[in-house]
Structure formats: C-alpha cells, structure tokens
C-alpha cells in the first residue's frame, strides 16, 4: 500500500519553502495598494519593459509561429516527461555529471546541503534561481551553518535589504534607485560613502562587492532555464556575468532544476532562445547565455551535480488542463502586462511565483486549498495569454482552478470586482454613469473585451460599488 501511495502524484509539502503566503491575496493586496511608492515603482518598471519587449518582438517576422512551436514542444515534453528525464539523466551522467532526484523541497535541500558539506565549504555563491527560492534553500543552508551569497544584482538588493523578491525576472522591481543606494550604503561594509544613485554607480558597487566572493568560493548553486534531454546540456540565461562566474569558477557546481525544465532536443534551443529574451527583458538577446554538459576536463567545475526536483510538479502534471502551467519558461511577461500585478506587486501573491503564472502555478503546486484566493487574483482580462511566449492559456486555468477553490463567495466577489474595475477605469466610469455599476458584465462590453465574454466567467455583479470597496479597504490599511 505504502509503495502505491509513494508513487502517486503529490503536492509540495507544508512548512518548507516559499509557495504559501502568510495571508490571503486580498488581505496582502490591500496593504500593497496603500503603498504609493511601490505602485509608482511598479508602474514605471512594467511600462518600460512592455515598450521594450513590444519593440523587439515586432522585429521577429515569425513570432506567432515561434510561440506555437514553443507550446508544441512543451506539450510534447510533458507527455513524455518520465522518459525525457531518464534520457537527460543518462546524458548528464555519461558526460561526467551526477544526477540526484528530489521528491520535494526537504529532500532537495538535504541533497544540496550534503553536497556542500562534502565539498568542505561553508559558503556557496548562487545564481538567481526560482527553484531554489521555491524550496527555501537559503534558509536550509543557513540552518546548516552554510552562508548563501546571492550574486544577481536584484537578488543581492533583496538579500541585503532583508526583503523578499517581488518579480520573477527583476526581484527588486519594487525598489527604486534611491532605495537601492540606501541599502548598499547600509549593508556593504566596503562601499564608498560617496556612492550616488546612478544605476551605473550602483552596478559598479555590486561588482566590487562580489569580486572576492567569485574568486574564492568553492561551490556554486544555480538553476537552469533549459536542460536538453538529447545531449545533457544545461543552459542558464543571464545578463550580468554573475552566472558565468558561478558556472565557471568554482570547483563544484550544483544545479537545482524543476523536472519540467527539460526540453527534448538540441534544436529546440533555437526556439526558446528566441522567445525568452524578447518576452523577458525585452532584448533581442540577453548579454550572456551559458551552456554546459557534465564536466569539461580542464574547463570549469570538475564536480557537476544536477538535482531534479518534483515538489508538487507531479500533481500539476496530473491535471490535464492544469499541466500547461508547467510549460512556463519564467519570462515574466505575464506579470508585466497584468493590471492586478501592476497595482499589488509580487509580495501580495505570497509565493515565489507571483503574477498571473503564480496565480495558476502556486495553487496547483500546493493544492488549491493552500492558495485558495490566488485563482481570484485576476480580472480575466486575457493580457497574460496574449503576452505569454509559450501561449499558456492562463485565463482558462484561472477559471478551471476557481471551480476547485473553496473560496468564500464574498471575498471572491470583492476581489474580482476590484481587479476587474482597476483594470478598466474608464469602462468603470462609463458603466457607473450608465447603471450605477453592477451590470458591467455581458454582451454589451466594448472591444477588445467583447471577444472574451463568451469564454470567460465574468465576475458576478458586485454587491457594492468599486468606490465603496476601495474606500473601505483603503481606510483599513
């Protein structure tokens, strides 16, 4: 019996990692909505990146075909996940790497901790990785007396500011330059007191601060954007060169990767390396992408480990509709176009995966009961679906999860109404003039919303006007 139970899809365990918030989305969002500086920072950042991304996507004549290819490759991957992982394992092992499997966060943290200890290290340097944030690796390492050093600039800002990441791509998106300068002055022992808040000066300060760490740390921990089953190659996409430092300089490299990151073939890289940078940072190509396959004698780490992580992914895979959330390549485009994210920021989502993808991925990884309000953290406006480079139908997933979520109806209605109306301030004004709110939904919606009404469960008529909801919630914060 026990063996059968062990082999069944399982959600991520409680009490470890960062997939569950301390409070529900509406409660957390209410606080965020009261922070005007946060909203300004977010609006500035997301507006900037949307413009950049739109411009470089416009240069690609076959963008829609690439998106379709990305989706097809990912669907195929999920359908063949076990065999592809075995193929990846064989390829990495054949190239001199060591593959470990972790059913959940607890196991993954133990595997990494043991490997660091075996290497005789009391410090590791880290490349930004969603998977290691998800499992709470830093806390586990610290508990074992090992110091984790985040080397990505934004992660460094978050770590030094004793803060939490709020965006997949730019974890410190909620901080502006003046705040970053203050954190550096306070937390970097060797920093120049005359440091200005010029971004170039702040970047230079980070460079000086981390150089010694790069040159003297024996173990690095990374994630992986892609892992090629066919060849065993792992890829990390980055900008600053901290990734290259961590992937090249240490003696031991430990990569922690969710099982869904595998892709079948080498050629598939040609699709994803076009989709990811343009959708993500809005660049034609990010400054650096590193690929390595096991151990290369005489070049880079000679001890190479890969930890393959389940931690709830098998449960996501078990849902025929929900499994498309595993297609995500973590570009964060859906965050940048989301009207709800732009107003609440990432912290309100409680999980390391914020925004629209977080609203559908976190509840599936933990089980819907543990993140019941997240499927309601959306106006179902559909912008995320349009922006997603692998065409994940996030609105469909939200509706699907709402049908499973034991969500208090009053909270659901308040959330949906607020999100919906925040999304469409002018529409709101028109509707309010016309009918005293309440009847926004229906076939009378103007373009571009009318195209969605057929397929979406538009929010029920709110029992109070948006302004009432707004003023009540604002006065509580």
């Amino acid at each position, binding site marked *: 019996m026990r*063996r059968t139970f*062990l*082999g069944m899809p*399982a959600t991520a365990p409680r009490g470890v990692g960062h997939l569950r918030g301390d409070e529900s989305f509406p409660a957390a969002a209410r606080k965020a909505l009261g922070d005007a500086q946060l909203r300004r920072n977010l609006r500035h950042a997301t507006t*900037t990146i949307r413009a950049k991304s739109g411009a470089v996507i416009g240069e690609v*004549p*076959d963008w829609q075909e*690439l998106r*379709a*290819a990305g989706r*097809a*490759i990912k*669907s*195929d991957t999920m359908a*063949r*996940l076990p065999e592809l*992982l075995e193929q990846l394992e064989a390829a990495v092992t054949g*190239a001199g790497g060591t593959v470990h*499997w*972790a*059913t959940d966060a607890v196991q993954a943290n133990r595997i990494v901790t043991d490997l660091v200890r075996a290497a005789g290290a009391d410090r590791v340097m880290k490349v930004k990785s969603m998977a290691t944030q998800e499992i709470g690796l830093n806390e586990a390492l610290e508990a074992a007396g090992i110091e984790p050093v985040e*080397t990505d*600039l*934004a992660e460094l*800002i978050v770590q030094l500011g004793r803060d939490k990441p709020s965006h997949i791509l*730019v974890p*410190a998106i909620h901080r502006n*330059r003046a705040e*970053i300068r203050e954190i550096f002055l306070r937390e970097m022992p060797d920093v120049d007191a005359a440091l200005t808040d010029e*971004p170039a000066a702040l*970047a*230079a300060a*980070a460079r000086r601060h981390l*150089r010694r760490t790069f*040159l003297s740390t024996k173990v690095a921990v990374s994630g992986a954007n892609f892992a090629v089953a066919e060849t*065993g*190659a792992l890829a990390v996409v980055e*900008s*600053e*060169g901290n990734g*290259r430092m961590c992937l*090249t300089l240490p003696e031991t490299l430990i990569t922690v990767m969710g*099982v869904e990151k595998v892709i079948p073939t*080498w*050629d598939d890289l*040609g699709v994803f390396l076009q989709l990811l940078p343009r959708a993500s940072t809005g*660049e*034609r*190509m990010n*400054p650096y*992408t*590193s690929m*390595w396959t096991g151990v290369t004698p005489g*070049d*880079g780490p000679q001890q190479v480990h890969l930890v*393959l992580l389940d931690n709830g992914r*098998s449960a996501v*895979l*078990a849902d025929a509709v929900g*499994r498309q959330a595993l297609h995500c390549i973590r570009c964060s485009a859906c965050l940048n176009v989301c009207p709800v994210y732009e107003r609440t920021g990432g912290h309100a989502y409680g999980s390391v995966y914020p925004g629209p993808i977080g609203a559908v991925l976190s509840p599936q990884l933990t089980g819907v009961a543990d993140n019941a309000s997240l499927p309601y953290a959306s106006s179902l406006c559909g912008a995320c679906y349009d922006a997603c480079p692998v065409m994940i139908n996030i609105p469909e997933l939200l509706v699907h999860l709402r049908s499973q979520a034991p969500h208090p109806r009053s909270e659901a209605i308040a959330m949906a109404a607020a999100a919906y109306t925040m999304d469409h301030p002018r529409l709101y004004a028109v509707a309010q003039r016309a009918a005293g709110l309440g009847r926004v939904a229906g076939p009378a919606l103007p373009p571009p919303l009318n195209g969605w009404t057929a397929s979406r469960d538009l929010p029920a008529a709110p029992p109070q006007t948006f302004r009432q909801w707004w003023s009540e919630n604002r006065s509580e914060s």
Partner: protein
Amino acid sequence: MNARDTVLARLRAALAGAPPTVPVPPGEHRRQGDLPPGHPELVDLLEHRLTDYRAEVHRVAEAAVADTIAGILTAAGAAAVVVPPGLPTEWRPGPVEVVVDDDLPADRLAGLDGVVTAAAVAVAETGTIVLDAAADQGRRVISLLPDLHVCVVRPDQVVATVPEAVARLTPGRPLTWISGPSATSDIELNRVEGVHGPRRLHVVLTDG
C-alpha cells in the same frame, strides 16, 4: 522506493490515462534567414546589432587584424592581455604583454587587462557572438575575468538566425553566448552596461 523511482512513478501515474503522444509537428517558424551565412548585408546587420548593445565594432581587412587588435588594446591602456593557446600567432598584439593561457589561476586572470579570442559563430539578427572553447577561444574563464574582451569574427561565421547558430554548434562543448558587454536591467529596468563580466566588448569583423 528511492527518490528517483518515486519521482518517476509519480510522473507516470500523473500521465496515466493521458492520450498517447503525438509527435510534434515541425512548425512553421524560420529555420534560417533570407540571406546565406557571410552575406555582406548580414555582416552589416551584425555590426548594427552589436553597436546597438554598446559593443564596439571594427570592420577591417584580414591583413589588418593584428594592427587593429593592437590599436584597441593600446587605446584602452591595456598593459597585459591573455590569449588562448590556439589564437593565430599573427594576431598576438605586439605592443602589449601577451600571456598565453596555460591553466592560469583565476587571480592571475583577474589581474590582466584584456583578452583576445576568436569566435565559433555569430548571429546577425541578435548581435550575438558564441564561443565554444575551441583552441582559438580557450577556457570559458579567460573571456570572463579581464575587463576588456576583443573578439575576432570572420564573415563565414556570421549566420542570420538563432536556429542556424544552434545547428552549427557542437552539443557537449561548453558554450558562451555573448550579446554586448555585461549588463543589468535590475535597477528600474534600465539596461546598464558593466557588472561582473567584461565591461568593454570589441568585435573585429574581418573581410575574409
């Protein structure tokens, strides 16, 4: 049941009842650009894209590569540079100290002013050069620690698209795709050049 068997069993159970897999249709996306590798317009495009991301580009005749490299290093005030063992000897810059990489320790590399390498392939549309650790490019670390990277690219190495580059590269080799100097967008999403990798990237595009 060990963790490996458990994870695989869970994933297989999750897929139980799923429809049998259908092969992925090849798709309609471009596998190559309109222009063949090395076409002069592609080299122009590469120059434009590189410049757009603040790399400095030098278009020179094959015979002038050595002088161009020496000029770049002198102008940058570089006193000592590292080169990979397989760099064509005629490219080694005369006026500065040249250290041939022989498993040099990281501290030593970090103390050098620059590095000169060849490349494996370049992507015109994205302004990307790719190093594959061949003898004329060297270990990954040598193009990482010095603050100035000079990279020589021949026209026949310039392809239009990312898929063409992927197809040319050898899986299994350590690869570094470089698009402009080290940069970050982490402060208010502004691209700022110069974080941990080389802060200056010069690409020498030869005519043959």
